């Protein structure tokens, strides 16, 4: 089938014919402006990057650049890569209690109390912290989603994390299926994690006397997880999601650097022991999130309840609101998060001498009963039209500021000499994050 000598005359004649048919409405000769800003769809990456600065009052500070890249594949699948680098430094609590007298500890790298350069002394009344804490972590992950059919997708992924004293590798796989004109999605995923720990100075014998410096070599731990999820579009503006998850960890779950003070009846420390945690932990959690969206605003409320075999149960509630300006190119997003947890069964801020019946114990404040509030504010601005053509749809600059305050529930009253000391200090921390999405 050959066309006439000028191929584009087909179009011109067609325009003329439709003009005649429609008289007024086909008056415009141009083809209209239909652009396909589908750069993300076809062989193109969408990049998100951020730099975060985190500081705990008087303790840790961290700098963390993160970059992630997402690419939509021509078969409808998706590939996600991410990469993080953490640099932490500062002071980390070692688990011992404050005292009216100065206390001296050895850094994890020390082999005995005689090696002076590895020692640090804590002033009276202060929470003992290791001032030489520093760590660098590199982590990355890959995730690949491929469609099995029009309504079903399979994902597989892997993550790794590498620090001086800790390596971790995780593999995960999941399936998702849509029903009800894609208004309902059900998902099931499993994951498996393997960690290799090589504590600085060696892993101490759990529950052993600190002064003996009984340290061994390396340890391992494993984790498996199962997640069942249901997402439902409730109305045009409202999306609801519920997840049930079950995780099990086993192996060396103890923190090799943490101690527990041994305090006698008068309140004086007679020594310290290394902590010891059980070698298994099973955790169940339920998560419910509701998100609503309108033209200029959106809101999300997320709730989580978690319980585990260490006796910890926790509740979390987080509320996020986002407001767009009239031009819909800038937004503010305030958020608030409330968290409460109960203490682990074996949480002991200190122990009495000869408390031999207590096999498992830890003074790590992260296992204590506490509640915490986080206030956050995020600001974002779309740069698409501001960079003179450089920006694509979706180019955005954002800033997030968060303030975290944790209050540990007061434990048993301390004996004798420890009264008057703040044994359960609260923690305050600030996070500043600057991000650029392209």
């Amino acid at each position: 089938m050959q066309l006439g000598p000028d191929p584009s005359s087909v179009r011109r004649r067609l325009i003329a014919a439709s003009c005649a048919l429609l008289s007024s409405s086909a008056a415009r000769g141009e083809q209209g402006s239909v652009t396909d800003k589908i750069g993300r769809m076809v062989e193109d990456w969408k990049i998100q990057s951020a730099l975060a600065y985190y500081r705990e009052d008087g303790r840790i500070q961290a700098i963390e650049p993160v970059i992630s890249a997402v690419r939509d594949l021509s078969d409808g699948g998706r590939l996600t890569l991410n990469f993080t680098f953490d640099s932490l430094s500062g002071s980390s609590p070692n688990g011992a209690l404050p005292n009216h007298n100065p206390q001296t500890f050895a850094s994890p790298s020390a082999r005995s109390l005689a090696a002076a350069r590895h020692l640090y002394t804590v002033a009276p009344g202060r929470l003992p912290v290791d001032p030489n804490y520093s760590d660098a972590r590199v982590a990355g992950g890959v995730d690949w989603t491929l469609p099995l059919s029009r309504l079903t997708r399979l994902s597989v992924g892997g993550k790794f994390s590498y620090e001086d004293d800790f390596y971790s590798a995780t593999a995960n796989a999941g399936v998702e299926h849509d029903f009800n004109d894609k208004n309902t999605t059900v998902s099931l995923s499993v994951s498996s994690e393997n960690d290799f720990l090589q504590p600085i100075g060696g892993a101490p014998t759990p529950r052993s006397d600190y002064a003996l410096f009984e340290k061994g070599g390396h340890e391992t731990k494993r984790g498996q997880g199962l997640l069942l999820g249901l997402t439902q579009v409730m109305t045009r503006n409202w999306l609801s999601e519920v997840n049930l998850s079950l995780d099990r960890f086993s192996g060396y779950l103890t923190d090799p650097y943490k101690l527990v003070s041994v305090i006698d009846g008068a309140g004086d420390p007679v020594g310290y022991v290394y902590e010891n945690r059980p070698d298994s932990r099973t955790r169940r959690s339920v998560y419910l999130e509701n998100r609503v969206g309108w033209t200029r605003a959106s809101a999300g409320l997320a709730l989580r309840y978690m319980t585990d075999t260490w006796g910890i149960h926790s509740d979390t509630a987080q509320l996020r609101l986002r407001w767009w300006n009239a031009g819909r190119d800038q937004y503010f997003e305030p958020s608030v998060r409330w968290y409460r947890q109960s203490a682990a069964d074996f949480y002991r801020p200190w122990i009495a001498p000869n408390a031999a019946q207590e096999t498992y114990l830890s003074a790590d404040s992260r296992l204590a009963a506490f509640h915490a509030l986080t206030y956050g504010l995020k600001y974002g601005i779309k740069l698409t039209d501001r960079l003179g053509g450089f920006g694509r749809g979706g180019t955005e600059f954002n800033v997030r500021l968060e303030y975290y305050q944790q209050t540990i529930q007061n434990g048993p009253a301390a004996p004798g000499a420890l009264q008057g000391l703040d044994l359960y200090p609260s923690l305050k921390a600030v996070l500043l994050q600057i991000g650029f999405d392209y």
Partner: protein
Amino acid sequence: MAGPCEVLLPATELSSARELGEVAAAEAWRIEKKYSRYRQDSVLAWIHAQQGSTVRLDEETASLIDFAQQCFVISEGLFDITSGILRRAWKFDGSDRLPDVATVQNLLPLIGFDKVRWRNPFLTVPDGMELDLGGIGKEYAVDKAYDQLMARCPAPFLVNFGGDLRASRPLPNGPWKVGIERPDTVQTAAMILEVEYGALATSGDAHRFLLKDGVRFGHVLDPRTGWPVPDAPRSVTVAASSCTEAGLLSTLAMLKGARAQQFLQEQAVRYWLLR
């Protein structure tokens, strides 16, 4: 028209939005009632009932027949509104039941717009032949509804009848975002197009085909042979200034089969083609 039809308006009052929606709907139903091949009270049914006698057409129908004739000439016989009777032989239900050659052969003498006598406004359709405006009806309805709204609505709006759409001008804070679903069973991701003004029309439908011995027979039939155009693309979307023009271009591209992409490139239109 069996797909969902909508009009998108950034109106602030529900009552004015509803009114405009009803205007567009009324126009769509009017056209459907007048030109549907399924309705006994349509103009087409009336023409067929004349069994070969000459009829005088109203202005609107006359301009549609004019347009169909021009398309027949421009496409050198590929676009033919008398080819509708091939649906008696072909049922595109995804099965492997091809019609037998004789059935199709027997229909060919009843196909061919050159056999119709047309001198505006007088039309003579030979007895036994049928006219089918399914190939242009929906896009025409979009353009007519668009005209109705243009006269009444100063705000930007977008008319979308089952995927054939036309926008008057961009929204206050940016273009309209239109999702085009891919017809493939495996791909779920839609293409997102940003439309400021103009029309889009799509030809092709993944669910209307036959599959026999691994060969896929698309539903676009060549009126000269009565058989599906070989190597027709699965879907073609074209952008143009009117929906009728876009619709014709996408239909013509499908009829070009293996040369669809080349045809669209020669026409210098924005298009998206899937095989």
